[in-house]
């Protein structure tokens, strides 16, 4: 009774009160993100969104026929048209932008995580990496007005040419901004704060972009290529750039491991297009790339049929080299750089001509075998002597790109970029392709962009040829 009266009295007194102290502060939420934690997260994003096997990130492997689909063919028949880019922008890109913003405003969250210039430079390089993935897939995309949060909810779509120009500038400036003598970045799970490696990453990225311009703007391509090479790219397999996973850590497992081993999904097998190319040449990489079946062989799954088939034991899933819990995802490696140099020589980006191209080509194959741990001099000699492999000036470009495609297994988006630009390797579209125009040339914009950023979206579609489908030609393809 008394309690109730007290209660009533106290309730009556309460009403003047509009102060709640820290009631609205949750102890379970972070109020500020340390830049080192943001950097780690923006690198971890590689696993799920850019290189892993999430729905949209595995398309590359299906388009260039590194992989085939088993029971539920669809993407390899080109039935995906409009794909979301949400995870790029809202994930690593905004986190990296936040690192830059925090450092520029001396936010306490950036203190102690490396010298300001180093933090900014690293964030810029990684941002450039993600932006390159974006523009190479979709074409014109929001860039100069993007990542401005509430300041701009309707950023314009920049022309791909302008984005390339911007990224060249970013990479050049970022490399110059790095101060190796100052405190290095914290939270860098890719290079563990090795600033020299960041420079190599930036330069290799720049080199890749430079070659991408071989049709659209070879002049700029040439000069950027030379500058990148001079600034220092990967020069040995020990400098390979990859995203590593952690054995025994289920929060940092290779996505293919999650797919095959944790989730028991067997939707993908190595494509017979690839195995049919490799096997007759006694390529020792075959049992690395594909699972060795009970019969002792690696059996590729026919590509692009609308016939649903079950994979386990009938066809080879991808090899354990690529799908163990700790298997790394390749970004850039020495062999790839050598292939690029071979192509640059062949295209006349650099002097040296066919002789230089051939030498780099052979070195590239050798570096590839070494990278996969299957190098054997005798087998190698036989391999490069095989007429189907041996370099000739007549079809040198085709051979470089075809062997590069073999080497780039499961680094497939880059192979798709190469195929779109050079037409090599020569690929036949899926026999049961849902779209008769064949292998897609780009990804359609996210289906809801028309609602969210209508005018800019429509302008971009118009610039792309009027149709937001998979066959518009982006600038560097023209």
């Amino acid at each position, binding site marked *: 009774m008394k309690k109730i009266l007290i209660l009533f009295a106290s309730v009556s007194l309460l009403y003047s009160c509009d102060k709640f102290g820290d009631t609205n502060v949750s102890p379970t939420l972070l109020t500020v993100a340390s830049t080192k934690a943001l950097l780690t*997260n923006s690198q971890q994003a590689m696993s799920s969104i850019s290189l892993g096997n999430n729905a949209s990130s595995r398309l590359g492997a299906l388009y260039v026929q590194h992989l085939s689909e088993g029971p539920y063919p669809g993407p390899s028949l080109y039935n995906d048209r409009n794909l979301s880019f949400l995870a790029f922008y809202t994930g690593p890109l905004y986190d990296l932008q936040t690192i830059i913003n925090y450092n520029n405003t001396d936010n306490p969250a950036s203190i102690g995580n490396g010298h300001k210039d180093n933090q900014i430079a690293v964030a810029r390089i990684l941002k450039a990496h993600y932006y390159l993935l974006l523009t190479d897939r979709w074409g014109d995309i929001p860039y100069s007005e993007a990542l401005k949060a509430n300041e701009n909810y309707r950023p314009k779509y920049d022309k791909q040419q302008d984005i390339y120009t911007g990224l060249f500038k970013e990479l050049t400036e970022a490399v110059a901004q790095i101060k190796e003598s100052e405190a290095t970045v914290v939270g860098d799970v890719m290079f563990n704060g090795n600033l020299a490696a960041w420079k190599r990453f930036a330069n290799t990225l720049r080199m890749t972009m430079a070659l991408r311009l071989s049709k659209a703007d070879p002049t700029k391509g040439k000069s950027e290529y030379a500058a990148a090479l001079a600034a220092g790219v990967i020069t040995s397999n020990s400098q390979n750039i990859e995203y590593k996973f952690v054995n025994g850590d289920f929060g940092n497992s290779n996505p293919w491991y999650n797919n095959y081993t944790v989730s028991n999904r067997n939707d993908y097998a190595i494509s017979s297009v690839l195995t049919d190319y490799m096997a007759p040449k006694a390529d020792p990489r075959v049992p690395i790339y594909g699972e060795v079946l009970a019969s002792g062989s690696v059996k590729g799954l026919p590509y692009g049929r609308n016939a*649903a088939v079950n994979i386990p034991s009938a066809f080879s899933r991808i090899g354990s080299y690529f799908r163990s819990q700790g298997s790394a995802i390749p970004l850039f490696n020495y062999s790839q750089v050598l292939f690029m140099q071979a192509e640059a020589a062949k295209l006349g980006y650099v002097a040296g001509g066919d002789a230089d191209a051939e030498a780099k080509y052979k070195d590239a194959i050798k570096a590839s075998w070494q990278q996969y741990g299957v190098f054997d001099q005798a087998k190698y000699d036989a391999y490069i002597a095989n007429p189907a492999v041996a370099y000739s000036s007549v079809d040198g470009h085709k051979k470089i790109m075809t062997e590069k495609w073999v080497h780039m297994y499961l680094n497939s988006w880059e192979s798709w970029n190469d195929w779109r630009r050079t037409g090599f390797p020569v690929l036949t579209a899926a026999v049961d392709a849902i779209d008769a125009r064949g292998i897609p040339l780009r990804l359609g914009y996210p289906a809801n962009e028309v609602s969210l*950023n209508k005018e800019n979206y429509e302008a971009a579609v118009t610039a792309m040829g009027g149709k937001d489908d998979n066959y518009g030609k982006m600038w560097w393809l023209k």
Partner: protein
Amino acid sequence: MRKLVLITTIMLACWASAYAQKVTVSGKVLDSLGVPLVGASVREKGTNAGTSVGTDGIFNLTVKQGATLIISSAGYQEVVTPALDGMKVTMVAMSSNLEEVVVTALGVKREKRALGFSLQEVKGENLTIAKSVDVSSSLAGKVAGVQLVGSPSSTFDNANIIIRGVQGLNVNNPLFVVDGTPTDQSAVLMDNVENISVLKGQAAAALYGSRGQNGVVMITTRKGQRKKMTSVELNLGFSMENVAIIPAYQDQYAGGYSSAYTSKNSLGAGYLDDQGYYIFNYDPSVHPASWATFQGQRMLEYGADESWGPKIGGEMYRPYYSWYPGAEFGVLSPMTAQPDNVKDFFRTGTNLNNSVAFNAGGQDFSFRMVYGNQNRELTIPNAKRQQHQLNINGVYDIGNFVTISTDVAYTTHDTKGKPLEGYRLDGLNVTQNFSQWFQRQLDMKKMQEYRQPDGSLNSWNIGDPNFSSDPAVYGRPQYWDNPYFVVAENFGTQKHNRLVGNVGLNIKLNSHWNLQSYARMNSYSNENDQRVATGGLNQDGYSINQNQYKEMNYESNLMYKNKFGDFSVDGMVGGNHRTTNFSQLNMATDGGLSSANYFDIAASVARPLVSRGYQKSEVNSLYAKASFGWKNMLFVEGTVRNDWSSNLPESNNNYLYPSVSTSFIFTELLTSSVLTFGKLRASYASVGSDIPPHSLDLLINNGSFYGTNPSATIGNSFRGGNIKPSLTNAIELGLELKFWRRIGLDVAVYKNNNINQILNVDVTPASGFSSAQINAGDIVNKGIEISLTGAVIQKKNFQWDVMLNFAKNTNEINELAEGLTSVLYATRRYDIRLEHRVGEEWGTFYGRKWRTDPTTGKTIINASGQPEYDINQKIGTVLPEWTGGVFNTFKYKAFDLSFSIDWQKGGMFYSETRNFSTGTGLAAETVGLNDKGHDWRDYPGSYSAATGNTGMGGIRIPGQFADGKENNRYISARAFWYTARQRDATYQLLDASYVKLREIRFGYSIPSSFLQKTKIAKAANIGVMVQNAWLIWATTKDYGIDPSELESLGYEGGQLSATRQIGANLRITF
């Protein structure tokens, strides 16, 4: 609390001896039509002795010899008469109407005539005719403007309801209030419900503040009576439930993919036969020599979780189990259809639903205690729930001026195997398995033994023996575990406790002033876990979740009531202080279990995943209400409320909102024997609203550590911290008519403008965020509600009461933020999106459509034989055009029959069941002939543009190629049903219209003459009932989906089959 019980107990003892030298009189009180005047008050003049009239019109009262009785009832002229045993009193209506008293906001009882807004009430006996266990489904069709959402019949879940369409951009549920305490409907013991008042409009709910914005469902439980009595009521129910609706499956084709192929050589020569069987091909490099005899045997593509396989015709073939080592290894069996396999999986569920109530009372106290118990087993094996509920209500007068009261409701239940719905990739929804990814020829009896003799698991969905001879390899399930394993071993449990109650104090200051104070609590705790057993497809694991919630409300109201000549005044001022606390701990194993089937967090192979949930908020409120009446004919009422919320920015954390309403009883000015009552009402109200706690600032999410490196990411929703309370402005007009005092008509029209909504609008992710928190928008919902109630026939031996409801509501998006034309509500497969677009209806579906040629109108077919398509095509809207229901009660002598029917017209939903049951060849509609008159499941053969297809099978989509030529390409049946149909959203978006017989009860009251002889019981009624009785009509019936029970608004992802419950019910009063 303890003190209260003690006092109550003492007082009980005191009053036992207070009666002496008295007589008991019994009498009957009727109105002029001879209808019992239930609830009329009977008092002994000059004393406090009194009682009220029971349902049969009879009262019993102990009075002094020669006493005078005063009999009164609201709206009737008072009768003063000597107390005579066996007396019969006829009351004369004071005005032209029976005065109805209803429960309004904050539990205040009001004469309905004085209300200027719409309120609809359902009496307890009409709610639970079929012993429904759920408040929401018991309201279906009985209240105009209430739409049911959720799938209660086949699950343990409560349904949800939407009142008068949607306020704002998201669907929010109404506030459920039990005896004045805000809580959840699961706290309600259905057998103990006296009535439910639904406050639909904002004016009605203004006193509940922002929480009443979506309507208020006020549940009043039965109370004891303030008269000397004791009684016991027993309400026993038993029902059995069975699956009522499943998709129409095809039973002519077995599992496999052969109807996906163009010819029998598509897999290489010798792997398929003409009929579509998959053939065993002996390969000495793979198989042992003993398997050579299997060469050429018919198999199936066991790994296929689809039924595009061979035609079933009694052929001898190798079923999946003939590949597991054991007695059946290598044995051929005849291929036979199994039309009832899915039905056979589901069992007959049972539900024991009993309650017992004890009443005791005296002149200055009343007490009621109810214990309810439910024991339910669902149709899904291994799913059961045991529930206990206890309700206690007590009222006690201390002296002449102070009354203390309490209501306590305790609910506890233990659940095992709660079925999981929705489209899941973990294989835990067996209904999804059966209706979306299955093989039709499977025999359930064979599957029941899901473990092999050696203890290993088996599955129908095995690998391919053509390429492996190792049972450990080919015997592993491809995509689905055995469903019996799933329900038996991969289950979750739930332990739930909820305590809801209040302690109240009422001080009668004088005959006009009253002070009420309440302390109210709503608290619950849950412990849920889920296990994934070792050896199945999924990595084994265990997760557990514990949470606790407590909400306290401290409320004080000072009330005033008076009459000055023709004027009456009714007013109050009050305040409320609310605190809410929620905390949660989630833990899950990572990387598997350290020992087989060791279900504990300690079994986690990797560091377990742990997360916490937390919410805390406080709201202070002050409010006032004043109501003025003139000649009991014209009423005006105003309310005003101010809230201070801790969830809002400190600079902008309070908001004030008023309402005003009026009613005019124009029949006071007429005398008509036909139109006996007529009222016009109008109201305007504004309701403010805040946001959930801790949602002002940018969210930063933790990622998973990389080694020792912490990981964090900026959340995807931009929040600037600068948010204002949102506002709903509502106007409502109403008309209430009563004819011959028996037939009532209530019409309400309303319009709500939801402005300044706190929106989480989608923005282009290129901004760095996928959504942004803003104040904006103007969302309008308007509609009309009509309800017709009538005692159609009122003869001595036959009565027929009917209640008819109709509601039409439209929600439109008038405006969003500046420059924003659309807000995404949900995305589904194949570019299907549910959007709110400016200028259009709330929730419009956009998706793909086959492209047609603008001149010929024909579908454009590409060279592959597939239709071209366009995205962003408008398909339809999600909310119904109109809803309604009818409730009938018939009484003939001792028999009674009640049933309710409800319906919905319009509204669409996305159905995953329909999508995949057709895509995977399970549905009956996937069997048929093509336009050549040939079975379309046969091979279409290869195609050339000039000569067409070489085979006779396949399907040709009517249409033209890009060059205008008629399409002549036949594609495989699967390419049509799976692929082509994904290119047109009209195949996945279905019409949610339905008509349903929700519940029916047929009862018999045992004659009182018989009961009096036996002297055991005072009243008894026995009945048979059917709950969720019959989906009379719905276009989706053949697809196995009951649109009246969708798992969520506009979506069905693999829904449990609805069930029908048939049972018996016995009610006895002692």
